[in-house]
């Protein structure tokens, strides 16, 4: 248990200590219950490097739950789940977190801090520089709004900031939950820009959406979640 050795505090840390995985996501016979409620069952899913996958399904089907599993926010109740070579049931999942990008329904930003402060924090804990922060904000078109606190920004501006964060952090797996919602016409290309970026680095992307027409243009493979499992 690496975490129990206090010596780690004094040393530096290797985020990528696992061997490069042949597959980015590997789920085998995974089930998830939340409390007593079964949400997902019999899930088998493999996503390899360079893949962009679309995930569709009705409201409450379990799409967000699956993304949260892959983002290490939930643990599988049973089955074997591996992301970037790290077992999602074990403690090792904490170490791949910084390599997995996630944009969910609710913006994960500190409401009191400005957009720049939010990104600067993300940069500081992941070893990126301040220059990258400004570059990312400029990419998403928020350079002029960088010093506005998040709670004084529109919903779309908050989502754009999350895209800026992911562009800056360069994850190897990006999970996008309804990425087009709240982005205006000019910004909607951010989605493909981000997935292209990740894929170009040998990563993979998983996109959840209800707008099949629009998203199927971006993905190489589509999955349907129905009855708690992939159809």
């Amino acid at each position, binding site marked *: *248990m*690496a*975490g*129990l050795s*206090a010596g*780690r*505090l*004094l*040393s*530096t*840390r*290797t*985020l*990528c*200590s696992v061997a490069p995985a042949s597959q980015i996501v590997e789920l085998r016979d995974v089930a998830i219950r939340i409390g007593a409620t079964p949400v997902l069952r019999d899930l088998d899913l493999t996503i390899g490097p360079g893949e962009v996958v679309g995930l569709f399904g009705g409201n409450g089907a379990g799409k967000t739950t699956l993304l949260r599993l892959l*983002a*290490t*926010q939930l643990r599988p109740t049973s089955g074997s789940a591996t992301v970037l070579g790290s077992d999602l049931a074990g*403690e090792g*999942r*904490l*170490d*791949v*977190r*910084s*390599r*997995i*990008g*996630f944009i*969910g329904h*609710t*913006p*994960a*930003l*500190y409401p*009191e*801090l400005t957009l720049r*402060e939010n990104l600067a*924090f*993300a940069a*500081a*804990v*992941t*070893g990126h520089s301040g220059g990258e922060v400004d570059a990312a904000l400029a990419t998403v078109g928020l350079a002029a709004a960088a010093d506005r*606190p998040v709670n004084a920004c529109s919903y779309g501006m908050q989502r754009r900031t999350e895209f800026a964060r992911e562009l800056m952090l360069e994850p*190897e797996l990006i999970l996008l939950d309804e990425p087009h919602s709240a982005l205006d016409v000019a910004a909607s290309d951010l989605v493909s820009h981000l997935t292209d970026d990740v894929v170009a*680095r040998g990563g993979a992307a998983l996109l959840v959406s209800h707008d099949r027409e629009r998203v199927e243009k971006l993905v190489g493979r589509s999955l349907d979640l129905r009855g708690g499992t992939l159809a």
Partner: protein
Amino acid sequence: MSTQVALWPQIRAVAGRDLLRERRRGEVTWVTLPFGAIALLLIPLAIGIDAPTLRNIGPGLYWIVVLLFGVLVTVRRTGAASDADSALSARLGIDPGAAFIGKSLANLGLLLAFQIVVGAVAVVLYDIPLDRWPWLFVIIPAAGVGLALLGTLAGSIAAGSGGSNLVPFLVAPLAIPLLLGATQALDADLSDGNGILAWVLLMLFVDLVLAVVGVLTARPLQETQ
């Protein structure tokens, strides 16, 4: 694609974030701190005692207020993990130990400010004699460190499922030695520095235990959130 991130920048970033959020919100400055001072003022009104007694039990009352409100400082809203908050920590993969230390440092800063301001109020209100004031430079930080660590620990336990209900049960037992050390160290009955020293050492021991336990359990606690 391996990224090497030293822990010290992470610690600094976490502490800085917490202090900045508090500065923007002003929860401690504008709510907890005034309430603490007001509590000091109300207590003698409620128990209706005279000045000499007050001078005697004043330090005890001060420490009680520091303890009770100190816990509030450390579990304040900006420090508490909201949904978006924990999603973000999960996203960034901050080292749990570094996060623990960073948050504790921020808490310590706020607590020291609280202790000093409320302490000044207590000295004025209760006319507490400060014969052994140099000791305060050890006792106040020692108590602050302990409470800060305790609060951070309580916060991360509360962040998990079903855990928040138990924070009081956890804080109390660990707070007792801190409280005891702080009050006894300033007790008027102790005539020599040795007596004080023993209590200060007790506090430092508790601080050390809390720091070690906090860092070592940070990972398992984070993992079960």
